[in-house]
């Protein structure tokens, strides 16, 4: 089958992902662009017997290579030379989104323009003379709606046309640069005579040099440094003659070109102000109401996610209301309940089968408990991760998240963060892995690192579960139970802000938070398709990257728990290496009032996954109800508070560590994060414990 390579490009929010998903039907491969934490999605479709491979380029405002995204997109076009570049523009804001298209047409000839959101444009009374625009831009323009699936077939027809050289431009688009042309031609000629920077189109390179493109200047410095002074002299001359900053001249020339097009080809029948959007914005962007509404929406959403995943707090509510059976049903049929029983079944089935064919001892244990259980742990992350990503996707897609970032900006700024630091914090309440990976959305690299390091301090849902168990073990009064829980959460947000501030100052030496500069897309109902695709591909991506690591750590932990100096222990955990380590650590844990190797052991296991902490107490006491187990082991209210603090803030789980490794990419920062978490947990728990002792608690 004949194959072609197409790339999708465009400004953020023009519907690129939606179109990509629509064309490929969600059958995609997600990975990172080499060397950077920037997601790269690739997929394919077959159209008229030709296989179209599609790469989704990062969404950027231009192709100036001023940040990683722009550089990746540009390099791909220049070096990979796709058969077709599909540039997506937004029909409802052509004045803005055509800028990218113009830049693309100055760089590349084999272009198709997808005029997206044509449904929304129709609704708002925006009429576009597509033929007129085609004549001006010289490439096929296809009105489509990626959301509704309109025009996709025609878009693919034109894509194949362009790939075969039909209907493409013969040469690059020329914008009227208002007097800069003679200079552009001079530089073009120099480049030609000297045979410099041959992998770029020459005119384009000349224009970029006038705009002060640092990447191009750098490449020229490596290739032909002797040309730089000549070029500088020409630039200086042009600046003097034209009396204007050349970068500004170039950008405003492109915009004038766009204004010419929109003036003659776009007619807005009525100025349809999206009034609903404006009214909602008056609330969402209110300095006081905004943050409150955002926080409220997020709490409700997590309440729902948690109920789906674990049954809590629906089960408790039902129990209070006297529906005990229904409550346990809810628990059993929650996602994690179902997964848990499935893996229990699998593990005991394998055990029975292996024993029946004559295996015994540690091989059975390794396979059934070590490997299968670790797989179970890995899989048990999936619902939470998936739900957290669905939540993130829906909030982003609806337009709520950017507003939340705006409304939190003033508060966060006091701690050296921008409002965007709100995303990882919100997601952290679902899953720290999702929180850490969500920091990719930040455009400031240092802020991205800082928030990846501090967002795991916010208790995820697994930790909430353990927290609630501790609270119920030390008190039967719902009021003090919730007081402890809320205290831990409030403290975690304070810690998030304070530690970020400290890291900013001490490690990254940032004085001020990066200034907010972001687009607020119009509100709309999130598209299920888009959200599901986003959640699925992110979850898969994480499992592929961190799966092996988690599995490996799980097996190591199994070994530590099941082997001791006497060899394989078959269940006698008290003689295991893990218990031995626990014994070594217990002097430390005794400083926070938990003077027993069993606590230390639980914290070790809690590193694999926080639920493991509870399972450990059950297995060392032989009491299956974790609340009861904690009581048996002698947890007093004071010790409970200390344990809650330590548990909530120390390293969340190995999956988070795996995420930190893949996102931070600098071992030093990962270590620093772990040390910081251990220290915060220890200091807070010790402070609480010793203060409590002095106040007369035990």
């Amino acid at each position, binding site marked *: 089958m004949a194959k072609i390579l197409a790339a999708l490009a465009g400004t953020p929010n023009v519907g690129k992902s939606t179109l990509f998903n629509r064309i490929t039907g969600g059958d995609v491969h997600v990975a990172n662009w080499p060397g950077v934490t920037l997601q790269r999605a690739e997929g394919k479709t077959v159209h008229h017997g030709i296989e179209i491979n599609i790469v989704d380029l990062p969404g950027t405002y231009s192709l100036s290579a001023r940040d990683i995204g722009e550089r990746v997109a540009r390099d791909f076009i220049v070096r990979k030379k796709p058969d077709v570049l599909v540039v997506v523009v937004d029909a409802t*804001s052509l*004045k*803005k989104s055509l800028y990218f298209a113009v830049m693309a047409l100055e760089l590349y000839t084999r272009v198709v323009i997808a005029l997206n959101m044509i449904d929304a444009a129709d609704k708002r009374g925006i009429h576009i003379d597509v033929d007129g625009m085609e004549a001006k831009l010289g490439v096929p323009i296809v009105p489509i709606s990626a959301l509704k699936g309109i025009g996709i077939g025609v878009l693919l027809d034109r894509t194949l046309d362009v790939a075969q050289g039909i209907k493409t431009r013969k040469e690059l688009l020329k914008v009227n640069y208002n007097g800069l042309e003679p200079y552009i031609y001079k530089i073009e000629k120099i480049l030609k005579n000297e045979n410099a920077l041959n992998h770029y189109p020459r005119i384009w390179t000349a224009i970029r040099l006038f705009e002060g493109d640092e990447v191009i200047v750098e490449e020229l410095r490596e290739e032909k440094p002797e040309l730089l002074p000549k070029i500088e002299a020409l630039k200086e001359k042009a600046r003097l003659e034209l009396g204007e900053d050349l970068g500004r001249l170039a950008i405003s020339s492109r915009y004038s070109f766009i204004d010419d097009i929109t003036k003659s080809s776009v007619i807005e029948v009525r100025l349809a102000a999206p009034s609903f959007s404006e009214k909602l914005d008056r609330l969402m962007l209110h300095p006081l109401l905004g943050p409150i509404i955002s926080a409220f929406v997020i709490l409700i959403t997590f309440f729902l996610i948690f109920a789906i995943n674990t049954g809590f707090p629906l089960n408790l509510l039902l129990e209070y209301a006297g529906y005990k059976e229904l409550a346990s049903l809810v628990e059993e049929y929650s996602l994690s309940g179902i997964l848990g029983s499935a893996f229990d079944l699998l593990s005991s089935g394998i055990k029975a089968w292996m024993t029946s064919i004559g295996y015994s001892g540690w091989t059975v244990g390794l396979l059934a408990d070590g490997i299968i259980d670790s797989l179970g742990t890995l899989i048990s992350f999936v619902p939470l991760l998936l739900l957290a990503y669905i939540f993130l996707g829906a909030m982003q897609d609806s337009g709520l998240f950017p507003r939340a970032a705006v409304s939190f900006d003033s508060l966060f700024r006091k701690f050296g963060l921008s409002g965007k630091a709100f995303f990882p914090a919100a997601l952290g309440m679902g899953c720290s892995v999702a929180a850490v990976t969500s920091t990719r959305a930040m455009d400031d690299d240092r802020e991205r690192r800082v928030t990846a390091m501090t967002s795991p301090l916010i208790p995820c849902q697994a930790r909430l579960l353990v927290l609630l168990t501790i609270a119920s073990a030390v008190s039967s009064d719902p009021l003090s139970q919730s007081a402890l829980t809320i205290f831990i959460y409030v403290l975690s947000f304070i810690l998030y802000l304070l530690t970020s501030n400290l890291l900013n100052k001490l490690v990254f030496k940032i004085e001020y938070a990066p*200034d907010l500069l972001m687009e607020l897309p119009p509100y709309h109902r999130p598209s299920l398709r888009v959200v599901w695709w986003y959640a699925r591909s992110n979850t898969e991506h994480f499992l592929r990257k961190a799966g092996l690591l988690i599995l490996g750590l799980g097996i190591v932990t199994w070994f530590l728990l099941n082997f001791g100096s006497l060899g394989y222990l078959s269940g006698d955990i008290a003689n295991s290496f893990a218990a031995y380590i626990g014994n070594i650590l217990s002097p430390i844990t005794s400083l926070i009032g938990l003077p027993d190797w069993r606590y230390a052991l639980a914290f070790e296991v809690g590193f694999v996954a926080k639920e493991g902490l509870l399972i450990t107490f059950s297995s060392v006491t032989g009491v299956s109800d974790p609340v009861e187990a904690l009581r048996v082991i002698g947890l007093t209210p004071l010790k409970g508070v200390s344990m809650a603090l330590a548990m909530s803030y120390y390293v969340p789980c190995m999956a988070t560590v795996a995420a930190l490794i893949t996102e931070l990419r600098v071992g030093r920062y990962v270590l620093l994060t772990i040390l910081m978490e251990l220290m915060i947990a220890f200091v807070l728990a010790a402070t609480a414990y010793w203060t409590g002792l002095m106040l007369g608690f035990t």
Partner: protein
Amino acid sequence: MDHNQGLVPLSIMRSGQRGRIITLNVGRGQARRLMEMGLLPGEIVDILSNSAGPIIIRVRDVTLALGRNIASRIWIEAM
């Protein structure tokens, strides 16, 4: 020529006001980024909201949130 005559920084404009961008008083890289996002001298901006936090404007059919620091460096001629 007195550049500041009749000009005010975007950050002190009130909600509902409209103005024309005259200069961007920021570094070169930042200026180009802003211009590529449509904040170009000569463009007309509508101020949608301006209270404590970032200022919300509409320019070239797009709604943007701008930090106060940037906004105080964008000089506007009120209309």
